């Protein structure tokens, strides 16, 4: 080749490669692999496919530690999304992904296209999306810039998800100053697929035609993948043009058309054109199948004139797919897309020679082995180092601080904080019910959907306490897995699998990579003990602005199965007379707690111990009690500690109801008792007639537990040693909780 390359393209030099985010070493490697200088278009391909975002260069070596297999796993990592078996003929596909950088540059479109991208990952597998969740992290909510970001991100998610027609089942909104220059916008999508209708992103069968379907290609989002692989500097906001623009209506048409096309049996393989667009799809699809691909770029539908091969290959225009179609059945595909008024253009064929060959009006502009692009990116094992700050953080003793407030005002101010206050302001902007499957709306520990045509249900959640991960990456990340599993379990569901979105700073800094390595090890450990496989995920590095790294946030998205959806459980107390029990250990800590942050602005201290075997038993016991219909409520006891958990159980349901509990103080201070946080704890309420049965069941599971009080009245009362330390009217509690978020953010 060489002679065919268009002469109008810039000359490729080392400087140009460096400007593309490649290192000198990587550029050398490309030249050696090709035995020549790459063309300009080829350089673009390598820079995108070998970016951190696409190639996981810095993370791959650690990620292989994660357990990815299990009896329910039908598809592990490596495809557009993972799939777990629901029994019968159905399976669940799900994945979480980050859209952090675009959302900071342009919050509305950044967040919207994050939703669009994750939805395509789901329906590419042949599944109909049935839920989305969003896990958001922002800086100080008192800062007007933060409020603008929150407003933009939430309305972007609302706009895209609502127009597309998928219910939002929950997620998280959290705050820390470290996110002010680098918010986190992670979106998870869940889809339902028949097991014999699963599609994969493989370009099988040389000779099969390759179809481009969906929206037209423009110049938007060129180098999005590369942008996601660099830290922010002061010019970040000038990169707005690299953020893609979403069109949820076209995405909805694309969904219906793709599912209908798949139903014809004429689709061989399909891949979403997201990050690195055509470049990624045209190399990854044949690489997975051991084939090659030849495409004619002038046939790609374009909405701008004069686009170069480079721009066409690297555009990240949204709502597009690449299809490999069974030869001879092209008409069936054309008919379906014509019905939905979408472009479907044959742009090439699958070949047997293992090359990606792109032509522009017949002239070859790129000719690269697909494996070189998709599989041969360098893998780095960069140095890691325990950060010097770790020791000081752990050495901090929260008891050294004198309590700044009495327990009652402290509880009210916690409930009134944007972190713990009701997030209704957010989720009422999201459709939560389209599809008429939502059994538990946002606002409980997990969202629950029914599976029509069966008695089954699915529970979904996203969780992470980034403060815990910062203080102890290994234990904190394991706690994120434990908490997600707990939230699924307290809803009555058995965890089936998880997807992780690993948000960290720059992996080129040894202390950040240490956080990453430790966190992945913690996730792996928790997954092994709790027997929950990782079926997919996403790594988002370079979450730094001006050298300030975020609090590391390995966000865990989890799905679980209820055999009987009717047995589902929610977090709020139901009625007077029910007895309240606390399952799990007594040990809690103020280290890394919401209390310590909200009242003392400190993120420090030692975490409560995590005993994964005990965690597993508590969750099993809880599920068994829910399955036997003994519980009227079950609520994960986490941020804010026991007092906040009890308050939420009183006021978050449709009918507020009070509670009176008496807790054994042991040696704990009132602060620890009320606000200390620790894993493996669940507050349940038991119907009076089920008390005996419940006691027996807990005995069988040999989990630590104790009765602590009864539901009733219109006050939240917490006593220890006979004296009440909290005695508040529900009105006051509810008012604080309801206004906390909205007043500051809305």
């Amino acid at each position, binding site marked *: 080749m060489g002679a065919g390359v268009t002469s109008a393209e810039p000359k490729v030099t080392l400087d140009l490669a460096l400007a593309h985010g490649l290192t000198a070493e990587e550029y050398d490697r490309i030249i050696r692999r090709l035995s020549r200088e790459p063309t300009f278009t080829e350089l673009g391909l390598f820079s995108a496919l070998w970016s951190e975002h696409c190639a996981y260069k810095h993370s791959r070596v650690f990620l292989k530690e994660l357990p990815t297999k299990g009896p329910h796993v039908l598809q592990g990592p490596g495809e557009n999304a993972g799939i777990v078996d629901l029994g019968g003929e159905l399976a669940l596909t799900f994945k979480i992904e980050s859209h952090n950088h675009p959302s900071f540059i342009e919050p509305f479109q950044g967040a919207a296209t994050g939703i669009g991208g994750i939805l395509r990952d789901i329906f590419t597998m042949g599944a109909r999306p049935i839920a989305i969740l969003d896990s958001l992290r922002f800086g100080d909510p008192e800062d007007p810039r933060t409020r603008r970001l929150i407003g933009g991100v939430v*309305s972007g998610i*609302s*706009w895209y998800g*609502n*127009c*597309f*027609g998928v219910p939002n089942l929950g997620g998280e909104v959290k705050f820390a100053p470290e996110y002010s220059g680098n918010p986190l916008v992670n979106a998870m999508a869940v889809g339902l697929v028949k097991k014999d209708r699963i599609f994969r992103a493989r370009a099988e069968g040389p000779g099969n035609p390759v179809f481009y379907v969906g929206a037209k290609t423009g110049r938007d989002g060129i180098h999005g993948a590369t942008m996601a692989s660099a830290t922010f500097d002061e010019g970040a906001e000038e990169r707005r043009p690299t953020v893609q623009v979403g*069109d*949820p*209506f*076209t995405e*909805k*048409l694309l969904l219906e058309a793709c599912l209908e096309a798949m139903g014809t049996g004429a689709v061989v393989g399909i891949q979403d054109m997201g990050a690195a667009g055509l470049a990624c799809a045209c190399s990854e699809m044949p690489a997975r199948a051991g084939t090659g691909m030849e495409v004619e770029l002038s046939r790609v539908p374009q909405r701008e004139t004069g686009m170069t091969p480079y721009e066409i290959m690297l555009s990240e225009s949204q709502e597009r797919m690449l299809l490999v179609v069974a030869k001879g059945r092209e008409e069936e595909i054309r008919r379906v897309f014509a019905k*939905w*008024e979408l472009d479907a253009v044959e742009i090439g064929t699958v070949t047997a020679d293992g090359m990606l060959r792109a032509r522009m009006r017949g002239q070859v502009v790129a000719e690269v082995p697909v494996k070189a692009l998709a599989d041969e990116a360098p893998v780095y094992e960069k140095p890691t180092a325990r950060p010097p700050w770790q020791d000081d953080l752990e050495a901090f003793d929260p008891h050294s601080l004198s309590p700044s407030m009495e327990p009652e005002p402290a509880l009210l101010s916690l409930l009134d904080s944007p972190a713990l206050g009701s997030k209704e302001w957010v*989720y*009422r*902007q*999201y*459709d*939560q*019910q*389209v*599809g*008429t499957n*939502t*059994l538990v709306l946002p606002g409980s520990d997990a969202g629950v959907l*029914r599976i*029509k045509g069966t008695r089954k249900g699915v529970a979904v959640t996203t969780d992470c306490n980034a403060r815990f991960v910062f203080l102890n990456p290994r234990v904190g990340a394991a706690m994120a897995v434990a908490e997600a599993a707990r939230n699924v379990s307290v809803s009555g569901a058995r965890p089936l699998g998880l997807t992780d979105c690993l948000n960290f700073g720059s992996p080129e800094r040894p202390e950040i990579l240490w956080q990453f390595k430790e966190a992945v090890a913690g996730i792996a450990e928790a997954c092994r003990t709790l027997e929950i496989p990782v079926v997919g995920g996403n790594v988002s590095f370079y979450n730094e602005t001006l050298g300030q790294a975020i609090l590391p946030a390995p966000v865990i998205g989890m799905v679980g199965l209820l055999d009987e*959806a*009717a047995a589902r459980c929610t977090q709020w107390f139901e009625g007077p007379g029910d007895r309240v029990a606390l399952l799990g250990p007594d040990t809690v800590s103020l280290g890394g707690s919401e209390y310590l942050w909200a009242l003392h602005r400190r993120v420090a201290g030692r975490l409560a111990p995590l005993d994964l075997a005990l965690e597993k038993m508590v969750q099993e016991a809880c599920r068994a009690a829910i399955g036997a219909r003994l519980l009227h409520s079950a609520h994960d006891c986490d941020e804010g500690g026991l007092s906040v958990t009890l308050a939420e159980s009183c006021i978050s349901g449709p009918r507020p109801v009070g509670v009176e509990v008496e807790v054994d103080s042991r040696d704990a201070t009132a602060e620890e008792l009320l606000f200390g946080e620790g894993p493996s704890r669940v507050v349940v309420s038991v119907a009076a007639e089920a008390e005996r049965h419940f006691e027996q069941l807990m005995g069988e599971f040999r989990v630590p537990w104790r009765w602590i009080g009864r539901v009733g009245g219109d006050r939240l009362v917490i006593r220890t040693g006979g004296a009440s330390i909290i005695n508040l009217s529900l009105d006051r509690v509810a008012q604080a909780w309801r206004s906390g978020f909205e007043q500051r953010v809305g």
Partner: protein
Amino acid sequence: MNFGVVVFPGTWSDCDFHYVVGEVLHQQVRYVWHRDTELGEFDCLILPGGFSYGDYLRAGAVAGRSPVVEALPEFVARGGMVLGSCNGFQILCEAKLLPGALMRNECLQYRCQSTHLLVENAETPFTRAMRTGQVLKMPISHGEGKYYADQDTMRRLREKSQVVFRYCTEDGRVTREANPNGSMDNIAGIVNEEGTVLGMMPHPERAAESAMGGTDGVQIFHSLLGSLVEDGTFLKR
């Protein structure tokens, strides 16, 4: 009874209505593509919620000029019933099958929440199984649901008892707090003069099973079924 559920590009409550009519109420139902104009077989057509054509121009504006909607006046004149919910209501207003318009919510945000509806007129084919003054619970999910009409239209709506549902509190008071979108007179649903076309912003199909949080939406269908007489025509007002 024979139902048709109209599907526009961008409709998303089609499957939900189809499910409720077919699986919950065990009535005959099939989808009607937006290009179809052969409507002879149906007793009732449903225009479901969604974002037809992305609602990029104005909510319902493009769908309001689609072949199936242009065939509706004849369908209605022939005795057919039309139920438009959410985007369906917007489309019916755009097509002038119902008076008034639906504007951006007063809060300028999308709202998905439970609402209570006061039954204002229990003498339409859609409300015959209810009592006037009864309170129903149904969710809304829209960004453009603020009902607006000029004073003359409002007066006519009142005179002819065309206002069917108004947003109210749980105990039936029509207050500003109970109005989720700033609609004039808390209007949530209206009928045409004959009572054969109902447009409403709330989603009855999402309140059709107790597992979904309520069954008040079913009363609309029960009313319709109860209004159908033996010769295949409907009892009118």
